[in-house]
């Protein structure tokens, strides 16, 4: 029982748990904002990581039965369930909020107070929130069946006949599918505005680049679903499965960097013209050039990584 004066004080346990959750969440988000972690690794690190994933998957596969029994410990399962249930409750709150905001935006749009872009943005937020709710529901079902943390690697086995990894990928697919519809509509709107001269061609290129990014992301998820199906049907082994995932992600990276580099080149040319007539400073041109060089370096690195992953794949197929 708490002392009355401490009623409105957070418990030390809660303070520590939330701090730890925030730290891991901010790290995860920062990593996502910077791109896939392996994209910044050296060649040796990529290969080592691939090897570690392969070895870990093999050892986990071998020990899965033993671990499953050990992890049936009800205390562990209850803790996991309680944690995910709490997150699921919050996700449902977020979904309710997103749905309300979407309805409000729709009403404002219908009376002319809001543009269609705002409604489309809210539609996407609802799709994202719905996907989060669905993913957490799958996590809960998997924990109830296994008593341990849900597994997300494509070489994870089925759980009681259910393919949770595949189901999660299909839920994840729903978000970029929705985003793609939105981005295509925005692109169409920008094309019309460019045609009547309200916005410049740079905005059009940016919008095209966004559509391309989402298309590449969709394609990668679809490839992962196909890889997962091949793994489950026994056509490919654990090691090849994980290497193919790396290959799909590396290809996405190289594809999406190319249009960004083209945009960066156009930006340098545009700024150089402006600098020539004194409309921008030389430092602006230098910054845009550095940005272009960074993207070109990232592309070279991604291409090299892709080459090495493919070499590993061919070595694996022809031992």
């Amino acid at each position, binding site marked *: 029982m708490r002392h009355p004066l401490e009623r409105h004080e957070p418990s030390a346990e809660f303070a520590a748990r939330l701090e730890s959750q*925030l730290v891991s969440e901010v790290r995860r988000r920062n990593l996502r904002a910077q791109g896939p972690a392996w994209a910044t690794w050296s060649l040796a690190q990529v290969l080592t990581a691939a090897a570690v994933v392969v070895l870990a998957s093999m050892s986990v596969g071998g020990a899965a039965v033993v671990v499953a029994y050990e992890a049936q410990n009800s205390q562990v399962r209850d803790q996991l369930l309680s944690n995910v249930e709490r997150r699921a409750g919050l996700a449902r709150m977020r979904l309710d909020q997103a749905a309300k905001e979407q309805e409000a935006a729709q009403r404002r749009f219908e009376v002319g107070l809001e543009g269609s872009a705002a409604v489309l943005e809210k539609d996407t937020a609802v799709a994202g929130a719905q996907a989060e709710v669905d993913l957490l529901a799958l996590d809960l079902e998997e924990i109830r069946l296994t008593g341990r943390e849900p597994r997300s690697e494509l070489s994870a086995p089925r759980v009681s006949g259910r393919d949770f990894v595949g189901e999660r990928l299909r839920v994840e697919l729903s978000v970029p599918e929705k985003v793609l519809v939105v981005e295509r509509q925005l692109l169409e709107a920008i094309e019309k505005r460019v045609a009547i001269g309200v916005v410049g061609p740079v905005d059009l290129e940016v919008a095209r680049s966004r559509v391309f990014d989402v298309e590449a992301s969709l394609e990668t998820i679809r490839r992962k679903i196909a890889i997962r199906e091949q793994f489950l049907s026994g056509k490919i082994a654990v090691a090849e499965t994980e290497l193919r995932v790396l290959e799909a992600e590396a290809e996405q990276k190289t594809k999406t960097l190319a249009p960004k580099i083209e945009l960066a080149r156009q930006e340098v040319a545009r700024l150089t013209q402006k600098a020539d007539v004194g409309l921008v400073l030389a430092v602006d041109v230098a910054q845009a050039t550095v940005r272009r060089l960074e993207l070109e370096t990232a592309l070279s690195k991604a291409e090299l990584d892709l080459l090495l992953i493919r070499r590993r794949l061919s070595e694996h197929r022809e031992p």
Partner: protein
Amino acid sequence: MRRTLPEQDLIEIYRETLRPLYAFVSRRVGGDAGLAEDLVQETWMRALDTWPARGLPDNPAAWLMRVARNTLVSHLRRQRPDPIDPALIDIEDERFSPAASDSAVIVGWGLAQLRRPHAEVLEAFYFDGQSVSEIAAAQCVSERAVEGRLHRARKKLKKKLARIVRRD
């Protein structure tokens, strides 16, 4: 444009604001620790969603409390409290205080139905324990004006709470 969030800055803000934020929420839910923890956690998740795109706010504590309040109002608007004994919620009695979790939730539910200016003055009075002169100073109005607002807000709240008063 989405940017990364400096981890160290975030932790410093978290440590500085956790106690006032928790107390702010806890007082509004009558010390219900489970609900207070969920709301604080949700508030921080919203901060992580928003700050990378918009940058750190000038006054993070004020931002967090505003978001926590909005989240709580959304939560309370979805609830329909059980009918209550009118003797327990006599908001016109000067000694009344929504300190217990039951009465805090009912008062909170009623405040969530009010317009923001009315709700805020009552929240400051009931939940933050501010005196009339403190509220007047914070809102840059006279004490007389605050008394008037409190009177009108109480009447509105009483009207809302009448919907859930048990009639024996």
